[in-house]
């Protein structure tokens, strides 16, 4: 399973490196969304508003949905699905590999967006840096959940529009925990309880994904 996960993650990341879809399309979209959020708050209020973490995670949600669709689209061509199916890859390994690759992509995008939050929403640099561990954990959980929901919607007639509807209820606890954790870091408080929630969700999504990904692929 681990060997399959490494193989699939390496393949997905190589494809992303070649196509640069996330770099030239998703990242600029996220940065523009942050700029618009800053404009909506206004130049005087942005630095003093408590809305920064919430707006940051709203943008993270949007780019995560785009990244999940991209991750699933790689496998969606009927011919590719059939050819790869005949390789008999372990479905648990495929899930872990795709989730890992998505997590790496989201970490890179998240780092850019966090810098954008400091620049455009004027969140404190030190507090933003303290939020990095919770961001890493939240994005990993979003990647695991997103890979699962992506497989669930992948065979539908309109997967790109079905995904947000199905995924949002699952993502909500993660986004709230991430936002609370970021706010706590900015206020100098303790984010531990939010980290625990996110960690439990990450482990749960990984376990469910390893167990059910094959069933979702078959269905």
């Amino acid at each position, binding site marked *: 399973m681990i060997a399959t996960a490494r193989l699939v993650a390496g393949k997905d990341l190589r494809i992303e490196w070649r196509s640069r879809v996330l770099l030239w399309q998703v990242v600029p979209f996220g940065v523009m969304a942050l700029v618009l959020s800053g404009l909506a708050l206004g130049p005087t209020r942005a630095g003093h508003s408590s809305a920064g973490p919430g707006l940051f995670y709203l943008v993270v949600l949007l780019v995560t949905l785009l990244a999940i669709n991209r991750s699933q689209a790689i496998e969606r061509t009927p011919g590719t699905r*059939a*050819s790869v199916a005949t390789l008999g890859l372990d479905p648990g390994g495929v899930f872990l590999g795709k989730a890992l690759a998505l997590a790496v992509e989201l970490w890179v995008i998240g780092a850019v967006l966090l810098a954008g939050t400091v620049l455009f929403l004027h969140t404190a640099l030190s507090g933003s840096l303290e939020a990095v561990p919770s961001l890493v954990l939240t994005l990993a959980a979003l990647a695991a959940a997103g890979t699962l929901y992506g497989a669930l919607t992948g065979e539908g007639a309109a997967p790109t529009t079905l995904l947000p509807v199905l995924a949002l209820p699952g993502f909500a606890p993660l986004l709230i925990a991430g936002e609370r954790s970021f706010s706590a870091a900015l206020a100098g408080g303790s984010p531990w309880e939010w980290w625990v929630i996110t960690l439990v969700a990450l482990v749960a999504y990984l376990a469910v994904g390893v167990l059910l990904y094959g069933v979702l692929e078959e269905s």
Partner: protein
Amino acid sequence: MTAPPVAELEEAVVLTGGFPVLAGVTLRLEPATLTVIVGANGAGKTSLLRLLGGLDPLSRGRGVVAGVDLAHGDRRVLRRRVGWLGHEGSFYDDLSVEENLHFACRALNRPFTDVAPALARVGLAERSRTTTRRLSAGQRRRLALAWLLVRRPEIWLLDEPYASLDDAGRALLDELLVDVVAAGATVVASAHDPLRTTQTRRTLTLAGGRVVAAS
């Protein structure tokens, strides 16, 4: 002693959205043979190939392929033993020719040394570092054949194998079919046009999801 059949279907039905794309197919495929499936569009040729490859589930009837029960067995086990050549693109477009084949080798624990001879055989040695997206339709077809050569499956399932191939490509495919059947593999190919290979073969005619003639 006679070798057991590679595939045996009895009144096999496959439903897609409630519609029977295969409506009771009975057939038997012997090892190291070439079987050609002919029929009009929508006759069920691709559906039959997908069923034989474990890519689609059996809805009703009975079927055993390569020792795997299609109704109750693990179809993943069967899939590892078949090679699929579909008429859509079969690869990751943003990987190079060589990277696609390396992916297959790593997935199957095969050495990378199998890749260069396979590419040379299909005439793509010069394009090994080309991104798959930049290949022509015929070259992609050749890459699909190289993928099968690297895989060396027991059962070759070829859906419209001549599509997009020029004369040289068709001749290459004919040669390959002769070689793989001689090596003991079983080949099942769907075709609109008759296959040009001189290989001894059986022809099944499909219409409305059923075998209506066999020769």
